């Protein structure tokens, strides 16, 4: 029960027990036909997902053992592990791995700090709270490609950009932001986009906190800081984990921002794995290397995803227990 109690419960306890008792009961045994009737509604979606999302990965594995330049007809032939050796020998690939980890980790962590702070600020009653919330979620809703284009021009421009204007009282002038600080510039944009997402999730956590508990803490003489660190933080921990997990899934695949702002440059300073793969496939037309690095990325993602799925499992139990 202690595990469940950190989860918001919007419905009375008896319905939770009912859901567990009734809904999780497997289909009656000895009735294969009935079981198939149950499965039937699931099959179209399942088959669709397998065909569209799993088969391409299998084909990627197949291509990774071959050499094929899309522009040269007849160049498609079996080469074994050659593409893997080439991928690992390519310094750009290794840079892309490091860049992906750096960009994702810093963007997710900073976005969570900013978003969490905003959530705490919004978790109070004040004049115009609804408007402030609306303003704050808007960056997340702006089309990422449009946002990237806008930041690149109207904000980061060394001469006419807003950033230059805002920082000019500090004596900072005509800085080529994307050239001098490419990673930081990309992270700043990603944080701007994703902090609202983190804010929404943490805010949901804060608002699900039972008032009685906060009151009890106050009655017991806990200070504001104590209440926050001892009561609120443990309560929202799960929400923070969820935000970090989902944010990582999306941000690790960031492509539009890099494509629009830096094209992976200068040099390879902002080349992340998505951009590297894109570059190999559609600029170098090198199917073999692109596929091999794709497989490596796939394995890396699977390892991370295993941890993520474990967390998702606890979420699943939470939703099940709540219903």
């Amino acid at each position, binding site marked *: 029960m202690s595990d469940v109690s950190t989860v918001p419960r919007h*419905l009375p306890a008896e*319905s939770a027990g009912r*859901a567990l008792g*009734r*809904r999780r009961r497997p289909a009656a045994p000895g009735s294969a036909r009935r*079981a198939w009737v*149950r499965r039937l*509604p699931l099959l*179209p*979606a*399942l088959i*669709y997902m397998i065909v*569209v*999302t799993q088969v391409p990965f299998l084909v990627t594995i197949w*291509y990774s053992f071959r050499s094929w330049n899309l522009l040269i007809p007849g160049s498609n032939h079996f080469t074994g592990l050659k593409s893997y050796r080439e991928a690992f020998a390519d310094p750009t690939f290794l840079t892309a791995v490091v860049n992906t980890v750096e960009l994702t980790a810093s963007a997710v962590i900073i976005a969570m700090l900013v978003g969490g702070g*905003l959530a705490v600020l919004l978790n*109070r*009653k*004040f004049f115009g709270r609804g408007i*402030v919330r609306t303003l*704050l*979620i*808007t*960056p997340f*809703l*702006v089309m990422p*490609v*449009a946002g990237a*284009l806008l*930041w690149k021009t*109207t904000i980061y421009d060394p*001469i*006419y950009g807003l950033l230059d*204007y805002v920082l000019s009282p500090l004596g900072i002038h005509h800085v080529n932001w994307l050239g001098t600080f490419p990673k930081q510039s990309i992270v700043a944009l990603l944080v*701007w986009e994703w902090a609202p*997402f983190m804010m*929404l*999730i943490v805010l*949901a956590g804060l608002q699900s906190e039972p008032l*009685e508990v906060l*009151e009890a803490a*106050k*009655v017991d003489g806990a200070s*504001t800081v104590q*209440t926050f660190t001892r009561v609120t933080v443990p309560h929202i921990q799960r*929400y923070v984990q*969820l935000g970090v997990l989902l944010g990582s899934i999306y941000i690790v695949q960031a*492509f539009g921002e890099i*494509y*629009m702002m830096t094209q992976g440059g200068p040099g390879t300073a902002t080349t992340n794995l*998505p951009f590297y*793969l894109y570059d190999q496939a559609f600029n170098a037309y090198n199917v073999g290397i692109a596929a091999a690095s*794709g497989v490596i*990325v*796939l394995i890396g*993602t699977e390892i991370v995803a295993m941890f993520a*799925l474990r967390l998702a499992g606890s*979420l*699943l139990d939470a939703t099940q227990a709540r*219903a």
Partner: protein
Amino acid sequence: MTTVPSAPGTVPGATSKPATRPARRLDIERHKLYGRSRWYGHGWSAFTWVVAIILFFPVLWMVLTAFKTEGAAYTYPPQIVFHPTFSEFTGVFSGGIGPPLEHSLFTTLVSTALVLVLALPAAYSLSVRPVKRWRDVMFFVLSTKMLPVVAAIIPIYIVARNLRLLDNDWSLVILYTAMNLPIAIWMVRSFLLEVPLEILDAAKVDGANLFTEVTRVIVPIVVPGIAATALICMIFSWNEFFFAVNLTATRAGTMPVFLVGFITTEGLYWAKLAAAASLASLPVILVGWIAQKQLVRGLSLGAVK
């Protein structure tokens, strides 16, 4: 669950006045539990407003720039007060925004419809009358969302080329459906779990068959949930860039692909770019504002309400 102090008078050693009368407990403003003086609170409110305006400013700036002339967009210091003009918007409309807008609308609406058609029955057999291994299925569904799409782009590109689906709306429809299906299944399932079993049992006693049960009992209850799911799917499809830029070009390019065209000319046409970017973002911003309440539930796959 922590025990709640039953009445203020009986709490031992309670300082002056815990403002708790059981009947009014829910009316208590949260900030009073944290807050100190009134002015302290006003300070935080003002701070929140300032932060919100700073973070919103790039969006505002985009819209403002869209109403400028190119000359006014390029000034130092940047102009906040200027003579607004619609000329860049008309320029964008006559400059070919029509087809990308149509392609975006088509791929977004058709893929969302397909997602719902596939997700509703699937979610049903994962919640109301669950299959034996519903848990494994849920995990499989989620795991497809965690796979890096970039690693699959080559086969997808080659298959699309061989099927003559390159630069075709349908290739995006197929992929967006797969992209949003996991989100929709998780989300719709979380709504279906809220349908009271008693109602289903009652319908059965009254002789409702499966079809009646679904159309007359379940769907009316979860319509708001389905709408929320649809909105989330629309947002993701509308903004999707990776597949769009790799699989489409002139004949089926969506709005994000249309914006790529501005990279080459971005040095010269900020106002036009801002106008196009504003138009591209507007639908999702509006949808997101309307669906604020459902947004967090959708983004968290139904786990957070």
